[in-house]
């Protein structure tokens, strides 16, 4: 069972034949919040840092827009790699006394938490609390990408993607009190 955010049909895989500011503007307004959320949840960056990453990814994408076969996937991949690089740089360069075992995304973004209902905050907390690979696969899935795209982005096999999603769903169902077995 695939999840999606409803954006697939209109954007994913669609190559804009020429750079049109109205199309780009609409694409930006639609995708920017989703991309920021994607970066925040998948990497643990706060919303403002994620917005920086997302904006930089958009700028890179726009500079080569006509050559991109799948601009949306390219955009998310670039943002993902940039965000991971930032996280790695911070982790490597700033020693901390106690390393948290789980990134608490919502505590880093109280404004985001305030906009969500209690049960949605719970879902977000559990999503952010998944092991890294499961969390990444789930965020890519929630962002509307298919197995092949996720596999390419995360440099995994499609079977590994399905397996990670299976475990992620099972973990989430368990933590949310749902008795689901977790379909792939």
């Amino acid at each position, binding site marked *: 069972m695939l*999840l999606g955010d409803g954006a697939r049909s209109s954007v994913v895989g669609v190559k804009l034949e020429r750079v049109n*500011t109205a199309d780009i503007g609409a694409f930006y307004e639609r995708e920017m*919040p989703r991309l920021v959320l994607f970066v925040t949840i998948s990497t643990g960056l706060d919303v403002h840092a994620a917005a920086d990453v997302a904006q930089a990814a958009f700028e890179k994408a726009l500079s080569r827009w006509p050559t991109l076969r799948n601009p949306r996937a390219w955009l998310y991949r670039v943002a993902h790699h940039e965000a991971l690089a930032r996280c790695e740089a911070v982790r490597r*360069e*700033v020693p901390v006394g106690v390393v948290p075992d789980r990134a608490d995304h919502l505590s880093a973004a109280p404004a985001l938490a305030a906009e969500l209902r209690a049960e*949605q905050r719970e879902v977000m907390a559990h999503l952010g609390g998944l092991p890294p690979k499961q969390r990444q696969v789930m965020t890519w899935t929630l962002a509307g990408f298919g197995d092949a795209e996720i596999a390419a982005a995360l440099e995994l096999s499609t079977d590994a993607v399905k397996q990670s999603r299976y475990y992620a769903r099972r973990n989430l169902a368990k933590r949310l009190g749902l008795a689901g077995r977790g379909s792939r």
Partner: protein
Amino acid sequence: MRWRLRGGRGPAGDPDAELDAALFETWQAAAAAVGKMIDLPAGKEALLANSGLGQEDAADLPPRAGLTRQVARRRAVRPTGAVAAALAAGVLVLVAVVVPNARHGATREPTVNAAYVVKRVDHALSAAEPGEIAQMTVTTTLGPVIGGKPAGTRSENWSFGGQWRSVMYSPAGHPAYDEGSGTALPYNLVSYLTRTWARQRGLGHPAEAVPGPRSCRSVITALPQLFQLGLLGAGFAPRSLPVTVAGALRAAVSCKSLTVAGRQRVDGIAAIKLTSPPNASISETIWVSPGTYLPVRVVVRAAPGQPVVLTAEISWLPPTAQNLAMLTVPIPAGFRQVPLARAVTSILQRFPQPNAVAGHPPG
């Protein structure tokens, strides 16, 4: 706690469908919330402007009612006040009055872009503060030009977290003195003029962080601290000790009505040029990297008739062992340890300090 599904897509009682619905609904709500937290119009404008699409194709974009009003409102609530900074030699006191820029209301694009760039610079500095070493070469041009060559000083500065170091050079280009300190570290001062050095604990701890970017009072301290004016050992009050370069820059950036004045090449990159309003008492120009949005050069000029120019070339370095070593003041072999007061006095005779608290040399 059992998850209570609200408005799910799947049939009730199907755990998989309930999970999907919960995730889907949460993701959509969170994306909408993020959309409220970020400045989408400004981001879009900047994206299109940076790509070169924003100028000629702006007419393609649907007009957004209220954008100009929003920006004007943001400008209007910015603090307006008098900002004074003693910048050099105790002679010059610059009073910068941050006034609303009349041009902002005239054209939409530069205002939006400037607000966006300033916001990105603020975020970039905020992100850089804990993780990168700020390395600055500060050139101060003071007084009248004599024989075609302006009198001035040059110093190199490093700042990382609570640690900092500053090396002042003589006009001939030789190191004159080297000072540095940090949280839980003693203050070290090496005088190359007298081949002496001094150390004292309890000095040189960074001040409280510069208040948030919305507080323009911080500029009073931001500029002198940014440019490390004055020998710390000469008696800076503890609350005026240097803060981080990133913190000082944040204050300097956020408290000015900066406008984007195009791009200029700085060290090979097409840096974004931000300038203060033409009627400001302190002329402040900041070039930021278009990739990282971190400042790479800052030039502060005094009012007309005051030939003082402070130029800071800024690099942002990863805290590798080699770079971290630059924060340490080396004590050259053969130099003699003396009381701090004596080391300071010898330096003050050659380098009068503008901001020293008279009569309180430590030691």
